[in-house]
């Protein structure tokens, strides 16, 4: 049956989670469980690759009512997003096999981990707005337990905050879906949008307000200003791998929804040049700036990284909202590279906590000598995130800035590059000093840092980080195949 593969991509991790919960023998030994989860994750990667190679497919699962089909679809966008997400998820999964040794309740952690993957896959493969909304909500609920994992008071409070913000955002999105539905020609996603701009049921001004609210709503998951409040609270309390995927991957789910709404439902042309575009760009740039500032002020490493995510994901949104082919290219590149980079950074942070218990930035003096591999990779990722050539981050930012300049949009065509630049400087300011002091710090005041034992994590943790760093490096040097395919997609959408 055509498109069965799509269903398998979703059902595989879900079934894995189910088996993990229901079959006690899988949980008798840690090794068995890790093997099982690992196998599922690898298989999932394979399936996602197959889906990506299979070409465009649509699968209607069922129809809630005649106008409400629940359908899956694989196309350019879903391919990019699902590949990035599956990869991130697998890598973080392998990392967590050793990391989770010192957290409790591993079984339920892995179950939810796989469930979240299933819902993410479903989200990327959604073929209609309602399907997207469905899996968007589902993903929220399934990922809540990951935030709540430690069951401390802070974790519970953060989990609730995360839940409320997400539901609020989803509700705003739902309003858009409600109002859009009578105004579009197809319930399914259509490249370039299917808005019946000529015969709107309400005035265009009101309609723009609705679109604005919708996109802000979906922006919640992406941590976009003004709905960003949950992000710095939720991430630090989650276990490191969970935090890694939360900020590296789940924020991108928000981006995906915005992507779908803008390019597959509303259509870029409708928004281009309206106040909505400027307002959203404004929000995105504010978020870029604000996230960086917050990260700079934050001393706890994981929280700093989480704030950094707020900033970096908004780069993607900046590129997206420019509504320009080149900027969109940049946005997609930034999406990929930020996912890789931030994932790697979080894993490094996790490794540091796991091995030394260090959580704060100022404690990282001399750490480079205790765990050189880790810190080297940390430094590489930091450089990429700042945007220094030849690493991936640079290309992405370059495209966004160039795209912005080429649009000739008032104010933003020069404001965005400037904010990007400032933010890059800020990023450098909050990420490079820790790297530097890790290697060079502590030497001057003669502390016997070198006397401390080596703390290099096991290969199980190191290899995933290494793969990610390598990917950043290689993709940064040879980005052309990615740029080509992204350009193709961007052209199709605009």
């Amino acid at each position, binding site marked *: 049956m055509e498109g069965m593969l799509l269903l398998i991509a979703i059902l595989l991790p879900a079934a894995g989670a189910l088996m993990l919960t229901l079959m006690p023998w899988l949980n008798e030994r840690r090794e068995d469980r890790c093997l099982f989860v690992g196998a599922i994750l690898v298989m999932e990667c394979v399936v996602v690759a197959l889906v990506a190679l299979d070409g465009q497919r649509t699968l209607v699962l069922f129809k809630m009512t005649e106008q*409400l089909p629940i359908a899956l679809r694989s196309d350019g966008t879903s391919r990019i997003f699902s590949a990035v997400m599956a990869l991130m998820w697998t890598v973080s999964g392998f990392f967590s096999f050793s990391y989770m040794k010192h957290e409790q309740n591993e079984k339920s952690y892995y179950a939810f981990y796989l469930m979240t993957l299933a819902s993410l896959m479903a989200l990327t493969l959604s073929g209609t707005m309602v399907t997207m909304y469905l899996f968007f909500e589902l993903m929220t609920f399934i990922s809540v337990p990951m935030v*709540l994992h430690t069951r401390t008071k802070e974790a519970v409070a953060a989990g609730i905050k995360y839940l409320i913000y997400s539901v609020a955002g989803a*509700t705003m999105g739902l309003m858009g879906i409600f109002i859009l539905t009578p105004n579009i020609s197809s319930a399914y996603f259509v490249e370039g949008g299917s808005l019946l701009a000529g015969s709107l049921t309400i005035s265009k001004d009101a309609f723009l307000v609705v679109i604005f609210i919708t996109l802000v709503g979906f922006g919640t998951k992406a941590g976009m200003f003004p709905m960003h409040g949950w992000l710095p609270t939720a991430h630090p309390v989650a276990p490191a791998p969970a935090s890694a995927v939360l900020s590296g991957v789940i924020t991108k789910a928000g981006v995906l929804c915005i992507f779908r709404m803008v390019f597959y439902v509303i259509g870029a042309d409708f928004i281009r040049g309206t106040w909505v575009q400027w307002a959203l760009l404004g929000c995105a740039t504010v978020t870029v700036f604000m996230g960086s500032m917050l990260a700079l002020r934050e001393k706890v490493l994981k929280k700093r990284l989480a704030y950094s995510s707020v900033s970096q994901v908004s780069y993607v949104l900046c590129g997206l909202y420019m509504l320009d082919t080149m900027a969109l290219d940049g946005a997609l590149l930034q999406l990929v590279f930020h996912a890789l980079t931030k994932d790697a950074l979080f894993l490094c942070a996790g490794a540091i906590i796991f091995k030394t218990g260090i959580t704060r930035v100022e404690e990282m003096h001399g750490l480079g000598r205790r765990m050189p591999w880790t810190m080297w990779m940390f430094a590489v990722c930091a450089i990429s995130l700042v945007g220094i050539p030849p690493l991936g981050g640079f290309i992405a930012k370059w495209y966004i800035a160039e795209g912005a300049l080429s649009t000739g949009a008032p104010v933003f065509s020069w404001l965005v590059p400037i904010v990007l630049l400032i933010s890059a400087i800020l990023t450098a300011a909050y990420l490079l000093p820790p790297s530097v002091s890790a290697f060079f710090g502590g030497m001057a005041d003669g502390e016997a840092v070198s006397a401390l034992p080596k703390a290099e994590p096991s290969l199980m943790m190191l290899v995933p980080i290494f793969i990610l760093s390598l990917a950043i490096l290689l993709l940064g040097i040879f980005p052309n195949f990615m740029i080509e395919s992204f350009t193709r997609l961007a052209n199709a959408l605009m």
Partner: protein
Amino acid sequence: MEGLTLLAAIALPIAAGALLPVVRWKGRAARDAYILCLTILTTVLATVAIFGNFPRLSLIQFNDRLSFALKLDGIGRLFAGLIALLWPLTTLYALGYMRGTQKEISFFAFFLMSYGISLGIAMSANLVTLYIFYEMLSLSTLPLVMQKGDSGSIRAGLKYLYYSLGGAAFAFIGLVYLVYFGGTTNFVPGGLFRGVAVEHTAQLRLGYLLCFLGFSVKAAVFPVHGWLPTASVAPTPVTALLHAVAVVKSGVFAILRVTYFSFGALVIRASYAQYIPLALTCFTIVFGCSMALKEKHLKRRLAYSTVSNLSYILFGALLLTGQGLAAGLLHLVFHALMKITLFLIAGVYNDRAGIHEVGELHGIGRDWPVLSAAFALGSLAMTGIPPFIGFISKWALAQAAVLSGGLLPYLGLTALLVSALLTGIYLLVPSTFIFIGRRPGNAPGTKPVETEIRISLAALTALMLAAGFFSRPLVDFITRAASGLV
């Protein structure tokens, strides 16, 4: 006299209920069997009545203009079907739940009677008959609310009664308007004044408004919603079935009848008679949710949620479009399924685990994983997460609002969304705690749950979930029933 089936479906449970305290029962088993059999028999009769096409049955001619007559049409079938479906399940639950409590016999006697009377509301062929059953329902459910017999429940019962009868008194004025200007109270699709030159539109609108305000008491529209949360002192089967389905929806049903079958959309449309009720329902949607959020008591929280959801239905219906009515009717059915499940599970928490406040739910999911999962599913459905039923009806409502356009529909749409958000908070947050929290050490232990309760809850949950995937026939039926009324 083919239509006697209609009468039988109404009269049988009433007679059976009246007989219950009179007969000396040898054992509990015999009595339980009697109650269950008669409930099921009534359901069978009701099903025959719903699927058969029986002619109008005119029983009593009060005077020249008023008669007591029965007839089932589209929306009547829907309501009757809903009641006939849920009543046996709830009775089964109640048999387990009420076992060994005081005044068990009188409880089931009135419970059976209420069944017949609710069916009567669905089968009424004119407004007077509806009004009669409506009043009877207030009275027959009164002892059920006061079942506990302590001063709190009596106060709640009296409050319920005063509200209901006060509302009925205003509805009565509307009835008088109808009799005077329309000459009859028969339900005619599209209203009595369709195609007739209407000279008295202004008065009719006033009459409609009064009618609406009167019946809206049962439908718990702000500002006359106060009785509903208070009435949640009643035993759970009553709160679940009557105060989430039969009684409150009879208020909604009466408003639907008055709107589409008596006064007619034509008279009301685009006048204050439409706008005031619409504005009230919009406000109630948000108000109910906010109160639910504030409320710590689990059953009262659910009751406030009902307040909000009833106004969803009315909001849809008052848009006065075919889609709006269909959406409202859909929500009428779906909300019943969701809310009754939630209430019944809350009842188990309440009675078998001593949980009254939302805060005490923590960790109960460890003791009762399946039950709590059902509760969580119900919460998801109430919030309106696809693919559960709550989403389908909310979707339909929202579409109807968007399509009808204008300020108030959009206001309602916003209310709908705010309410979805608040529902998410007040139901999903506790649902989360059910699973992740820990039960305090001093919490009372859980008591075993009777098989009857398990069966009925399983059936209801299955029904609720299945309805999400197989709603097509229902939607088609409702669309057909709603077409031609506007």
